[in-house]
């Protein structure tokens, strides 16, 4: 009857005689092998006394665990040592997670299409639409040739449409197809214009008059009394493609960074991949930075693609001096949009709602931030609104260094604004973040 509580070290190997016992519920004649530990706090018949039930179990492990923990410590280093950040392991996890995500991304053909080719379509469509800068230039009919026509052509301010005869050219003016017709016959230069198109006619008159004066002056051989040096402030070739490229690239980068972070978080939560990571000894930072690295990689490939396509002769992009400064700009921009993605991914429940929300945000920002048109041409209120949106700063930064020929100084404001934005949004996201749905 004496309790066979055993200390095996002392008693040697146990010799248990096993007698099958009937299934008993809270039997009072329980066998006497019964350890007590503070956590159990039960009396010998298995009934917990009322007074004890409400007591919190002690924080310290129960006795059987104490023996165990000494065993554990024989096998593994003490926990304190293990909690030390292990840089080698961190790098290892980071590297393999990044590789896993990159492979998963590259093998998703639809995803790759929407990340790279779909935004490129914006570039191609807008690039082709605005390819003819003549949309903003006046077009005049020209008959004949001579130094005046050659000078006009060099000036490039008007587009010239060659015509066969003066009658034909004048008829064109009368129909309102062109504001003016220039008929050159030896030294006689005739300009016929339609007064109905006052503005353009005045421009053409001034322009042709100036060219004729210049030709006259040149033929007289005397040096000009007043010398005019007029130049455009932008790169001399600021055609539409010059602002469409940084604009649509910004849109592409923001879209893929936001969607990448959002969909990863939401689908990983739904599929319990987040739970797998939570159950592994990796930090949240490792997981997020490895996904961020993929997003930055994607942004760089997008930039290369956009620049490559826009530089094709059809579009004729010309990069300015320090265009490589676009790289830090892309990294900071990705960081800001990735944090927005984390925010959406923190509360969205399904991939569908997350994707819809992300797209809505990207397109709204796209229209309000001057990705399709120079923001300087937008109304005052829109320019003000755009200053509240992170996309505006990415567009500004990229425009500055890629086509406006600006240097590091052009990056200061965009980089600071985007970094601040990223920090604030990431902090909010980390507060809202949950590992599991339930």
């Amino acid at each position, binding site marked *: 009857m004496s309790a066979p*509580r*055993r*200390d*095996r*070290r002392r008693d040697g190997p146990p010799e*248990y005689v*096993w007698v*099958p*016992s*009937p*299934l*008993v*519920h*809270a039997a009072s004649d*329980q*066998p006497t*092998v019964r*350890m*007590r*530990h503070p*956590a*159990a*706090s039960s009396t010998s018949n*298995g009934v917990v006394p009322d007074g004890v039930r409400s007591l919190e*179990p002690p924080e*310290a*492990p*129960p006795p*059987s*665990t*104490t*023996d*165990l*923990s*000494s065993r*554990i410590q024989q096998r*593994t280093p003490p*926990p304190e040592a*293990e*909690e030390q950040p292990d840089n*080698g392991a961190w790098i290892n*996890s980071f590297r*393999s*997670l990044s590789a*896993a*995500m990159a*492979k*998963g991304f590259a*093998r998703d053909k639809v995803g790759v299409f929407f990340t790279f080719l779909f935004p490129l379509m914006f570039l191609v469509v807008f690039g082709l639409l605005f390819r003819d800068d003549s949309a903003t230039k006046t077009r005049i009919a020209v008959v004949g040739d001579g130094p005046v026509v050659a000078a006009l052509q060099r000036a490039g301010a008007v587009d010239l449409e060659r015509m066969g005869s003066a009658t034909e050219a004048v008829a064109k003016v009368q129909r309102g197809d062109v504001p003016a017709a220039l008929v050159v016959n030896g030294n006689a230069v005739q300009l016929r214009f339609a007064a109905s198109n006052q503005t353009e006619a005045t421009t053409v008159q001034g322009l042709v008059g100036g060219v004729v004066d210049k030709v006259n002056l040149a033929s007289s051989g005397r040096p000009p009394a007043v010398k005019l040096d007029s130049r455009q402030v932008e790169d001399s070739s600021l055609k539409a493609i010059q602002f469409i490229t940084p604009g649509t690239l910004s849109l592409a980068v923001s879209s893929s960074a936001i969607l990448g972070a959002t969909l990863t978080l939401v*689908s990983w939560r739904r*599929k*319990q*991949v987040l*739970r*797998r*990571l939570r*159950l*592994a*000894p*990796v930090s949240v930072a490792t997981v997020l930075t490895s996904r961020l690295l993929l997003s930055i990689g994607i942004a760089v490939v997008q930039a290369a693609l956009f620049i490559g396509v826009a530089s094709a002769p059809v579009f004729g992009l010309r990069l300015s001096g320090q265009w490589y400064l676009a790289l830090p700009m892309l990294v900071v921009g990705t960081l800001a949009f990735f944090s927005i993605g984390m925010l959406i991914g923190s509360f969205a429940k399904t991939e569908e709602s997350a994707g819809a929300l992300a797209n809505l945000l990207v397109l709204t920002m796209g229209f309000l931030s001057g990705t399709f048109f120079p923001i300087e041409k937008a109304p005052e209120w829109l320019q003000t609104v755009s200053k509240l949106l992170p996309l505006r700063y990415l567009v500004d930064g990229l425009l500055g260094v890629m086509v406006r020929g600006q240097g590091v100084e052009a990056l200061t404001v965009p980089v600071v604004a985007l970094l601040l934005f990223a920090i604030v949004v990431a902090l909010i996201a980390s507060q809202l973040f949950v590992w599991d749905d339930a």
Partner: protein
Amino acid sequence: MEQFAESRYVRPGGPNEQGRGRSVSLPANICPTDGAMGYRAHMSRLGDAGTAIIVHELRKRYGNHQAVDGVSFTVAEGEFFGILGPNGAGKTTTLEIIEGLREPDSGSVWLLGHRPWPRKKHLLRRIGVQLQASSFFERLTVKEQLETVASLYGVGRGTAADMLELVGLTEKADTRENKLSGGQRQRLSIACALAHDPDIVFLDEPTAALDPQARRNLWDVLRAIRERGKTIVYTTHHLDEAEELCDRVAIMDHGQILAMAPPADLVRGLAAPTRVLVPAGAVPLERVRSVPGVDEVAEEAGTLTVSTRTPAPVLATLAQQGALDGLQVRSATLEDVFLHLTGRRYRA
């Protein structure tokens, strides 16, 4: 305090600690229905084993639903412990609290001598949790999946290959996760749980939604894991399976443990009659009814069912009558135990 008098709890680092390095105490017999004799027998089979898990008076409530309502048990190192019950019994919540994924409202858990909540990285290295068969990294092959998971724990590639072999997926190593069958996905998710060679393995309904063939294949995997000396805690709603695999089971319903013992003990403890089934008409009803020890005879759907606690005389009589063709003998199962405990049929 009196009841703690024999407690051998010693503060870590205390004077007695070194001397107790190898001493092992039997886990406390917390649950009133835990058949202690069965447990001892079980322990003796396992030999010198420590306690892997201690769960004490766990409670967790979601809104109005008391998911876990005072659950206590211990699991020895190397034990295959099953938690069974119908859907919604609180099995998964209990498991998630032990794994450190949820914080209990009250009660406590010790996992290898540590509290799993809040998250402790050193403890995570020692437990392996099987997750949903969907919790894989997108579009990676079986091998890449396992290697990625292993690298999260700083484990080399060798273990991954080893685990692939254990779960029988070596041939599928280069197949993408989304091309696997249901059973293969389950096995991969188990392999992922084992990738870092943990001491305790948690499996939540590993055989759910599998066809019978795949289920039996998985049983072999589970047995193989157990042979490697892992402690296994596993939930299922297949009672037959638990009977087949577990050293000890806890039957749960409505957030509480109704009974806990080795499956054979539970069944035996029920002292339920053995049922002998013969085709109707093979033997006269009255003849059987007169055999001593027969509790009940019923004829239904062409089958004569004889319930008895002493099957020997019944079988002898049937043999005499030459009525052994098509004979079946059914003893009680865990399903009968469940019926007995809850007063209702088991709904899987």
